[in-house]
């Protein structure tokens, strides 16, 4: 596509597609934004189930903030701290903040491992954290292996400005999407043959979109793999405290205590966006066992420092052991309840999900509803779900899943009533499908959104819409 004269004034980064916002993952958000569900004002609207947000525990945080006015610099009790906080722009961050985050991270792992506050580096959300780690570890053109299906925005976060490429290592349902050392070896070899310099492996554990946790043996084999090849391991543990059943979460930090490993290769990405449900706060953390990465990352945090006001508030909140213990427990409980409600509802209509114990979503198996086991079929089904069933779910292909028919459905960003509405819509849809498949008619929908990748018309859509838009915020306006 020829660049307009205006665009010619711009850089390659500004004009290429690696921001990834033309993928179906974001198309669903567009559909939601055009017609958002509201229980009273718009009960025929699209329900947002494509945004992994945890809104189940706001009340706990709200209560804590009310009880601790000193932690907010804009209250009478806290305002005397104002000038020290407002002036503070040191990229090391407040010591108390780092200590509190280290404390929280340790507790999220059941106290089985402790974290050193001096290795905590801030960044602009986990988005910024992943990018910072890549800037520190890899040069433009280098590659990272990533087990797929994986979080769609990894490509943007890890590669857009860094120039790093991601090589997916496909996993499929034959072994419950488990990553194997053999698959990694094969991918690595292939990259070597193509003269691609593999710098590391990036995993999300607990997994997005699968919601599964890696077992000890798999983790051990991953660590031994990277150790052998002398490449880095980045473990995105953003859902570490969003675990609601067994098997329980094992962090890579625990594994390296148990086995021989070059610690300079191990890095963790974390954030409070999922576990605490505070994505608006923009708290991203890089935790590295490598001094050079900590040093470099510190300086890079100038590009994404956490607001000192936020640091101050969270430093108090996360060092309140009683609050943290209760929060973690309560969060798990509520997630378990919601997960159970949702999966049981799906089971009733014969829809199975991958067995999972973590995350804010389920990996739903709709393979039997596909006409053919192809990508096109999956996309057709997805259009139907968006346009007719009016649910924004995310198709497996947007997660680079090689097996068609899987969908990620988020369940933690709505209240119970909305869950019921969603389940009801699914029930109705599945029954209709069963009737349809008996009649065997051709799907000839008037597709509003075409299948082929294309640039979305920016003059029509407000570019705002590509940011995640929380349904709760929308509902109140």
């Amino acid at each position, binding site marked *: 596509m020829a660049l307009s004269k205006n665009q010619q004034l711009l*850089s390659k980064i500004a004009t290429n597609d690696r921001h990834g916002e033309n993928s179906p993952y974001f198309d669903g958000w567009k559909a939601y934004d055009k017609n958002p569900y509201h229980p009273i004002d718009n009960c025929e609207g699209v329900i947002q189930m494509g945004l992994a947000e945890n809104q189940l525990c706001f009340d706990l945080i709200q209560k804590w903030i009310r009880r601790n006015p000193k932690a907010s610099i804009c209250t009478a009790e806290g305002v005397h701290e104002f000038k020290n906080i407002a*002036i503070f722009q040191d990229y090391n961050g407040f010591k108390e903040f780092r200590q509190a985050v280290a404390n929280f991270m340790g507790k999220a792992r059941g106290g089985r491992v402790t974290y050193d506050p001096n290795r905590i580096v801030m960044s602009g959300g986990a988005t910024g954290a992943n*990018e910072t780690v890549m800037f520190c*570890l890899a040069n433009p053109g280098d590659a990272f292996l990533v087990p797929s299906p994986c979080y769609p925005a990894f490509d943007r976060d890890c590669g857009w400005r860094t120039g790093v490429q991601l090589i997916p290592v496909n996993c499929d349902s034959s072994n419950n999407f488990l990553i194997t050392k053999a698959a990694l070896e094969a991918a690595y070899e292939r990259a070597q043959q193509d003269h691609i310099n593999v710098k590391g492996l990036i995993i999300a554990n607990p997994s997005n979109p699968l919601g599964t946790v890696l077992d000890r043996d798999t983790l051990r084999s991953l660590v031994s793999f990277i150790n052998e090849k002398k490449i880095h391991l980045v473990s995105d543990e953003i859902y570490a405290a969003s675990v609601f059943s067994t098997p329980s979460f094992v962090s890579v930090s625990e594994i390296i205590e148990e086995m021989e490993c070059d610690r300079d290769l191990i890095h963790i990405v974390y954030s409070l966006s999922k576990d605490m449900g505070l994505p608006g706060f923009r708290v991203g953390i890089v935790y590295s066992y490598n001094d050079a990465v900590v040093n470099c990352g510190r300086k890079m945090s100038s590009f994404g420092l956490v607001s000192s006001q936020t640091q101050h508030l969270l430093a108090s909140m996360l060092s309140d052991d009683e609050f943290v213990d209760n929060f973690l427990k309560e969060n798990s409980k509520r997630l378990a309840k919601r997960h159970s409600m949702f999966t049981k509802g799906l089971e009733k209509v014969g829809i199975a999900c991958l067995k999972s114990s973590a995350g804010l979503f389920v990996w739903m198996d709709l393979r039997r509803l596909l006409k053919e086991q192809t990508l096109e079929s999956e996309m057709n089904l997805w259009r139907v779900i968006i346009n007719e069933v009016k649910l924004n779910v995310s198709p497996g292909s947007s997660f680079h899943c090689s097996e068609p028919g899987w969908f990620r459905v988020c369940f933690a960003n709505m209240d119970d009533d909305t869950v019921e509405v969603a389940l009801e819509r699914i029930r109705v849809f599945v029954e209709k499908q069963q009737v349809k498949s008996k009649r065997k008619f051709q799907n000839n929908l008037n597709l509003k959104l075409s299948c082929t990748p294309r640039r979305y018309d920016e003059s029509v859509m407000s570019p705002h819409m590509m940011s995640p838009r929380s349904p709760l915020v929308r509902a109140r306006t």
Partner: protein
Amino acid sequence: MTRPRPRPRTPESESETRNPTGGGATAMRLIVPLQGVVQGRGGLILGSLIPCALFYFFQLYLKRHRSPKPGSNPTSPSQSSSNLPDLQRSSSRSNLSSRGSIGPVQVSSRASSIARPNDSPYYIGLDRVSEDPYHRLDNPNGIIQLGLSENRLCFDLIEKWLSENTKDSVMGRDGGDLSISGIAPYQPSDGLVEFKVAMADFMSQVMGRAVSFDPSQMVLTAGATPALEILCFCLADPGNAFLVPTPYYPGFDRDMKWRTGVELIPVHCRSTDNFIISITALDQAFNQTRKRGIKVRGILISNPSNPVGNLLPRETLYNLLDFAREKNIHIVSDEIFAGSMYGSEEFVSMAEILDMEDIDKNRIHIVYGLSKDLALPGFRVGVIYSFNESVLVAAKKLTRFSSISAPTQRLLISMVSDTRFIQEYIETNKKRIREMHDLFVEGLKQLGIKCAQSCAGLYCWADMSGLISSYSEKGELELWDKLLNIAKINVTPGSACHCIEPGWFRCCFTTLSQEDVVIVIERIRKVAETCKILS
């Protein structure tokens, strides 16, 4: 009267292209005065040979005195002289240079480059102060910070506003916009619409209502630092360049160059012009850069200027616009000190110029933030204001990496929209900066140190060339060292700002109290006296 000569292809210019961390700048600093001297006699040859020879010996000297460094980066001719004390470093840093290459684990080249201890006096000074900070009671012999342009003069006003408006706190009311459910979830990454509206009005207010800003042309970022970097990513590819008038803010070298791979080409300004950019110099720099095969993508200006503190006159802005149009390049105008004016001159924003002209606005971009004018650097509030739709679209996507924290946005919306309070703040701030400025500059005058003509910013640009032993960067750094270690004040030497004339220092005075100013002047006096004795 000599015509400008094309720069000879000397080893220095070679190293300048290879080493973006400022090695070439030092070379230029040696060549220019020397060429001036030598031009009368056998000009070009002597003018190139002598600096070459000096440079070679300097490098030899450095090689002998420097511990082995890893990697193939040509050593940047460090600005540290042999007399500088061995600066203590924290242990995690001192091991890094060996870590990057000897161990089997390779980090990226960006990480390796930053692992070397930072040579710039700007950063060294900041580190030293944090190790030994002055405190009137607890540490009266500590180092007084004059190297960080922070404004501590008006916090009382903000604290008062906060105490009177606490219901606009994070958790003021039940439900409503300020409950947790309003700030916790995902927000648009380029800022809340209400905050953009508030910031647009605020910017207009601080610039004296001479121009109005459209919130839809705004992208908000976590500080002016990412704002600059994001613009750079949008406007230039790795290996491209921006022209920057010197002296310039040392942080530009990191913000604009580090991760983007873009080069900054200094365009030297002189005290005779009060450091205002000349189009001739700009043109020369543009051509020279092009000859080296590097594509110039734009000009980066700071207006009001950091570190000089003066304003670009309307005429200059028009000329810059014409130049940019002619060469088809961008202009990035960093106007972060627009509200920190204390003089009587009138600040003219790039936006105001564009308002009057009916021309192609696609190449103009303004950077702003609340770190200086509202003294809230910790809150991380930056603005990209552009007239180019495509840039706005791309920048919006890039804000995913640097968004402003939602509770901070909510807090500031009410504060920044309180136009009565902001008016009072701007006026009081102006008054207090002026008082401090006058006190400080007068104090320096008593010591025979003159400052450049300035009317904005949180600092003054002082000419201490009378105190330096040799009119060179080396002399300047020796003085800087004395000021840091004997007088125990941290000021920023002109060389850290790429200033071509030695002896200039940026002194920020808005972190001081009036008593502190007296102490600072006294400390400088002691050093000045020893310098006069020695010279």
